[in-house]
């Protein structure tokens, strides 16, 4: 059930929040747990059992880690817990890919291949597995105490706002909130506003861009002209940011309404001036996860330059693989690993001496090219798309001109997307307060009312437009009556 669906927005969400406040504090965790399991089962059916198994494994591992005294046995428990988590993840997420690769290799030497039913990928498995891993490792490191209550741990792992697309919330960050939280009106108000912004980002910007992206990426190569290819990847660059960060905004907003504060997941990644900076601003909960649970345990940057570079490449190989079981994602991850290594080897020093806009251009171009691997179905089609972007494709008949895609709606959403991927709006909001504080008496009130009113109008318009666009997505007319 996506947050940006009619059934979530107009049924599940109002019902859950209303019941949550009706039920009262005593049973609210168990209620949220049941609501989250229902939320998962609605889309994934019986795979909710898998989620339950994961919860069971990590709940027991946490308790065992805390109870064992000897270093040796707690090490063994940790290894076992990590192994079990990874086995679940590998089987359901990577088995198809591994088998495909093995078959490809087999086909080079023999005529036999292994045939097996494809395995369904349960949504959110990468997210809840990573949350679980952070929990058991933190308990092992004694950064946090194990959770004694099964329900509370289950809620931590399955809480619906973050269950299927993150952010990857650390247990330590919300342990106290699970135990006890109070919802102030301000939380609700902040949550609602954050949710509206996220919904608008997803429905009005990302979805609009997506329809052009889908059309452009499905064009046969000989019809993909250079301007169309660049438009397509520019749209996708903004689409994925607004889709993902919009989803995070909604997750943070909903969490807030229930009294949880999740950490931020994005910090205007497209204003970065280096790839290192980009990865500090993009999908922060994932990059810090890899930093804390992989890069640093591998030795981080403390064991010499060569080792650091290998660590970086290893980490980004896995970052790529985490995004999906295909060579495209691996190439995409390694691509960033390589740029990070190059920047470490001296490029960043060079960049610092460059004119600032050139640094931005450098990052944007690297990121745009990277997204081609992320969006294309196969490495082959990614290569084709890139060759179209750089003018290496011989074109046949061109059916569609650029103007076919670049309509008013797309121009508008592209413009808004570009503006909103910079901190301009945050800058204006910060300055509201400065202006108000500087003025005095009646003028300050009027300014306060003016800014408050503008904010209200803008937010409610975004909400109304999103709802209208969502309702429109269920519109399915026929020219003659369908009997």
């Amino acid at each position, binding site marked *: 059930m996506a947050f940006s669906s009619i*059934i979530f927005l107009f049924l599940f969400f109002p019902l859950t929040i209303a019941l949550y406040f009706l039920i009262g504090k005593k049973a609210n965790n168990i209620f949220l747990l049941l609501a989250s399991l229902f939320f998962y089962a609605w889309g994934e059916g019986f795979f909710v059992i898998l989620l339950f198994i994961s919860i069971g494994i990590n709940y027991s591992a946490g308790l065992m880690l805390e109870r064992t005294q000897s270093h040796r046995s707690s090490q063994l428990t940790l290894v076992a817990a990590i192994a079990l988590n990874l086995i679940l993840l590998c089987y359901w997420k990577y088995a198809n890919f591994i088998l495909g690769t093995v078959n490809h290799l087999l086909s080079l030497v023999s005529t036999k291949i292994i045939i097996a039913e494809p395995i369904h990928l349960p949504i959110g498995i990468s997210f809840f597995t990573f949350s679980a891993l952070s929990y058991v490792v933190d308990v092992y490191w004694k950064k946090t105490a194990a959770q004694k209550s099964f329900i509370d741990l289950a809620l931590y792992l399955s809480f619906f706002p973050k269950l299927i697309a993150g952010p990857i919330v650390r247990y330590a960050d919300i342990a106290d909130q699970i135990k006890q939280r109070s919802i102030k009106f301000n939380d609700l108000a902040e949550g609602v506003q954050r949710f509206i912004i996220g919904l608008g980002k997803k429905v009005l910007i990302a979805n609009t861009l997506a329809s052009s992206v889908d059309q452009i990426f499905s064009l046969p190569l000989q019809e993909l002209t250079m301007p169309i290819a660049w438009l397509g990847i520019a749209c996708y660059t903004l689409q994925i940011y607004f889709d993902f960060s919009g989803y995070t905004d909604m997750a943070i907003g909903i969490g807030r309404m229930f009294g949880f504060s999740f950490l931020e997941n994005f910090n205007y990644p497209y204003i970065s001036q280096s790839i290192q900076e980009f990865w500090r601003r993009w999908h922060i909960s994932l990059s810090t996860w890899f930093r804390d649970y992989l890069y640093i345990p591998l030795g981080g940057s403390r064991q010499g330059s060569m080792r650091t570079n290998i660590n970086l490449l290893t980490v980004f190989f896995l970052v790529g693989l985490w995004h999906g079981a295909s060579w495209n994602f691996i190439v995409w991850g390694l691509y960033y690993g390589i740029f990070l290594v190059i920047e470490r080897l001296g490029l960043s020093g060079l960049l610092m001496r460059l004119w600032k806009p050139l640094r931005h251009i450098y990052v944007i171009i690297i990121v745009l090219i990277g997204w081609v691997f992320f969006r294309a179905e196969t490495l082959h089609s990614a290569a084709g798309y890139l060759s179209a972007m750089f003018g290496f494709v011989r074109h046949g008949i061109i059916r569609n001109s650029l103007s076919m895609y670049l309509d008013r709606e797309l121009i508008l959403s592209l413009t808004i997307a570009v503006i909103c991927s910079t901190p301009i709006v945050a800058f204006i909001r910060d300055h509201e307060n400065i202006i108000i504080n500087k003025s005095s008496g009646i003028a*300050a009130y009027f300014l306060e009312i003016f800014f*408050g009113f503008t904010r209200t109008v803008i937010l409610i318009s975004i909400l109304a437009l999103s*709802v209208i666009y969502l309702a*429109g997505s269920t519109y399915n007319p026929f*020219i003659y009556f369908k009997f």
Partner: protein
Amino acid sequence: MGRLINNVFNIIIVSLFILIICAPPITTLLKSRSYISYSENRELVSMPKFVLSSDTLKDYPSQFEKYYNDQFGFRAPLQGYLGIIKVKLLHKSTVPTVILGKQNWLYYNGDYSFDDFRGLTPYNTQQLELWKNTLENRELWLAGQGIKYLFVVAPNKQSIYPEYVPDNLYKINKKSRFEQLLEYLNNHSSIKLMDLRKPLQEAKNNDLIYYKTDTHWTDKGAFIAYANIINQLSVRFPELSIIDQSSLIVHQAHKDRDLSIMLGLTNQQKERNYFITLKKPCATVLNQDIFPQAPKGSILVKGCNKSKLRAVVFIDSFFPPIEPFLSEHFESVFYVWNRYKHDILEILIDEIHPDIVIEEKVERYLYDVPSPVTPFRTGIELARKGNTDVAIEFFSEALRIYPQFIPALNELGLALAKRGDLKNAIIQFQKVLQISPYNNVALYNLERAQADQQKLYDKWDRVILQLQDKLKMNANDSFLHFKLGEAYQNRGYIDKAIIEYKTAIKLRPDSTDSMNALARAYSQINDNNNALLWFDKMLKTNPDDANVYYNIACIYSKQHDVITSISWLKKSIEKKFNNWALIQTDEDLKDIRFSAEYKRLIRNHYN
């Protein structure tokens, strides 16, 4: 104070948020269920039944979501707002099937009509050939029964008003499928489609011929089409003349049109147009009881008792504005919706004997190419059930539409072989091998059929030798000569067979068997005059021989003289000819099987 103001606005935002997300679910509960969406032109999904079993449980969420997506409160007004925002502000269509043109003109993009407009999906020669064969077959079949056939194409709106099509839908190839078809028929066939583009284009300078916000022509456009149809028909039926302007009323009205509605703009951009009606219509709706099972609205019958002509018209949504005028000219017209239906037409030909059959199709429906596959599949089905004779009919039908259809040739060959007609079976396999010299099926079956035929020839060769031996002892035995003739005929030596039959008759002038065999041998080599001469002689000696009447019917049928053939067939039945299986499968009678009279005979027999 600053906090307070901030909180007031926060309260407003939270309240409005709650209102906006709670109003739809509450309204869903309170309002009665909607069954039909007017703007979407479809039935809305109803609530799925909840059954507690693992199978149904799995699909329940998606079914419930379909239901909820169709039924949530404020759905229709919200969708209406989207139409206004998208179309009026952003100049973008809400659905891929409607194209926003220049100056608020709308075009329909269903059925690949703009791919066709742009010349992206030309017919290949094979498809053109399929069209040509289908139309020719239909015309020929109807002409054989004295019925005039007319195929009318209602042009797509973009063919008449291309100037409002957005520039980015430029033409890549000049010709649309319709234009290709016209050119092909012009060069390769005598059949003429009714091309209304020219009269409509001429008229558009004076009147609005197509609605701006609808896919159809206006009443003015429809009247031009009507006038052209009547002009065309009046060549053969001079009594037809276009209704005089003085008996028409022209008035204006304000209505939502279909493409506007599809965009979700009901009540937003009604169009004011001229409508034409008759002052005093003579035609009224008539009851039809020929098709009691037909879905409501699928067949309309109208007629005016001042006329004697009858017609069957296959129509789509372009025809209703023509219908009131056309109906005035006929005693009865059957309007059959949606597409040409052969079975319905066969029955109507029997029942009402139409003078005219009109098939009207909008240009975009020409996208579907007539296919030999349907009769072919029916044939396969029948052959599997062992009904070889009727299967042969269907394979032949498929081959009439597409003569190079290899699977049908192979199947026809097999069916003929099964029926014992090895000679014709071999011809079919040879045809396949001419098209595809290494076709395995044909190669294998040809070999088998030739081997079987050789075996038969060997058998008859032996019989011939035996009979020749016997004749050496008994040269004047009429019966032996007759038998030898038969053997020659079976072996394929018709000339020798004829000599033997003649000898047999000379020896015994009253031998009806020999006379019959002789006449049939002449018929086999298409010497129809001699055949008729001998059948005539037989009738003089035995005027009640039903077989003779039947054989004469066959000869006339082979000469394509349907009426005479039928009359002889009727006589044979009167004389108690009762081999009905033969009547229905005899290759010689294939020409008359199309006729209504023939069908009536068959039906009467089986009723």
